[in-house]
């Protein structure tokens, strides 16, 4: 009886959580809009190879600054490249970098956050002092220094962003661990002989999953904004690889002749970042209402 009922129960529990998520999403109109937009963009980007659009890097100096047409859906840029194709290709790069770097911040942040919360005492104080300290450092300058010394490859960007933006996730996850470590399941696991590592990785970290998801979602937005800024300055993703940030670099020089070129990439960044930020809020509301009090 007990064995027969438990999988059913678990299944219902899962569906409920999914329903709670959809319910929270339906209530937050901006998040609903953002998520729809994001899904639409991701599908279009995935379908890009089969769409009747030119290559994003094909230069055609006979067709510069064209208006939207059947051939060039959003017109062409200063090198006669198709703006729509570049938006799709650039978005792939920007979103991928954002996601990779956000994951990196969460991995580093949770490692430190779990250790601080679990061990407490001096370890906790040291880690949290360092976390707060780093929050007070304008990391953008540090990123400039990293890029100046190491060059601006995608790997360098992801690693550098990961190492400078982990503080938010670390604080969030530490709070969660502090809550769980005194609960019965932790005590029981310890009584059964689980070691420190096993307790942290197998028992405590999975409980902090909602916090991890929230941190990742909000992290993608934050990191994408920084990447866009660096790429805009010519210190992030470098041409000919398009990214939404570096598409804006060129538009800066054609503000007089082709101001519309400045619009599209910016709108894409704005909507994508908003989608991830509001999605983070929805996850927070749906997965773990207690996280709401931890501020914006």
């Amino acid at each position, binding site marked *: 009886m007990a064995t027969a009922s438990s999988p059913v129960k678990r299944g219902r529990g899962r569906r409920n959580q999914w329903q709670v998520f959809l319910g929270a999403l339906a209530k937050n109109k901006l998040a609903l809009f953002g998520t729809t937009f994001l899904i639409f963009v991701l599908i279009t980007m995935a379908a890009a190879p089969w769409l009747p659009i030119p290559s994003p890097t094909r230069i055609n100096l006979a067709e510069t600054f064209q208006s939207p047409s059947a051939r060039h859906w959003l017109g062409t840029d200063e090198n006669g490249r198709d703006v729509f194709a570049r938006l799709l290709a650039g978005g792939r790069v920007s979103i991928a970098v954002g996601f990779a770097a956000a994951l990196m911040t969460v991995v580093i942040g949770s490692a430190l956050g779990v250790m601080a919360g679990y061990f407490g005492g001096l370890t906790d104080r040291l880690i949290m002092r360092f976390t707060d300290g780093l929050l007070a450092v304008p990391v953008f*300058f540090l990123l400039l220094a990293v890029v100046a010394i190491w060059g601006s490859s995608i790997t360098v960007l992801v690693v550098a962003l990961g190492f400078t933006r982990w503080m938010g996730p670390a604080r969030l996850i530490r709070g969660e661990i502090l809550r769980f470590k005194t609960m019965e399941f932790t005590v029981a696991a310890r009584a059964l002989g689980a070691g420190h590592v096993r307790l942290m990785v197998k028992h405590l970290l999975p409980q902090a999953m909602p916090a991890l998801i929230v941190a990742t979602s909000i992290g993608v937005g934050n990191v994408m904004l920084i990447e866009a800024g660096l790429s805009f300055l010519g210190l992030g993703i470098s041409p000919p690889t398009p990214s939404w940030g570096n598409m804006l670099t060129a538009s800066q020089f054609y503000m007089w002749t082709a101001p519309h070129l400045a619009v599209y990439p910016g709108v894409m960044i704005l909507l994508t970042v908003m989608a991830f930020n509001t999605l983070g809020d929805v996850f927070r509301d749906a997965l773990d209402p207690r996280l709401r009090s931890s501020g914006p």
Partner: protein
Amino acid sequence: MTEYIIKQLFAGAAVLFIVVSATFFLIQAAPGRLSILADPTLDPTVAANIERRLGLDQSAAVQYVRWMTRIGQGDLGNSLVFGRPVLTMILERLPATLLLGFAALLITVFVGIPSGIIAARWPNSPLDQGLSFLSVIGLATPNFWLGILLIILFSVTLGWLPGAGMQTIGQPFSVFDRLAYLVLPAIVLATSTTAELMRYTRSSWLEVINQDFVRSARSKGLSERVVHGKHIMKNALIPVLTILGLTLPRLVGGAAIIESLFSWPGIGSMAVNAAIGRDTTLILGTTIFVAIAVIVSNLFIDLLYGVLDPRIRFD
């Protein structure tokens, strides 16, 4: 109190130590050699001379100790490109950055806090919803893009405000002229911090509203105006101060992009140019300087926080 100050000073110094050490390891772990030494046409004896002068022939440990001592003495070295002392170059450009940062901070405080209070005063009203919509947009907008749009609108199309620089060339200094140049970059720099401060003020305010002493004040028959203006205000704004401390590094970091976009002659645009020109000493020196400046200002905010809220124990 004294003990608390000493503790905070110590923590600040520790973070600085780590940041400066990190910058050192950043250089040490860098791939390849200094760009000037990588020039294949460079005479090997000249290269060796440069290496000796920069101390690059020493072991990493010796270089580390030297690096830390030098910076501890306030010597940030010379710019690789310009050959001038980094500290001098920073101090020359600091006033411009301070002006821009201060203007943006004023906008952040005087727009962010009042709009957060208005939103919390009438929660879920159309006004609150409109403001919260604006804050979501403000937090998701790349500020440099907003800058480009504003330049296109106000400088290129309407011609009302200048879009680059700090003053009209060839004209004597005037406050009005300076303000005209300051408006756009300051607004752009303040966008995301204003949105964030508004959100934070609103939630802080709403948290205080539900507390017992507010109910007591209301049950005494005090008007909503007095309850909000006196009782809630005092308690809700203190936590806002902390977020203001976290705003500083974001303003300073954002200044790098905004100064470059608006050709504002501050340390932010200098740092960006140094990064583009691979001027390692200049960019590292600026990073260290900025870190010190922000950590020190945060210490002041911490102290202010303690003075304003006697409930906070300095332990």
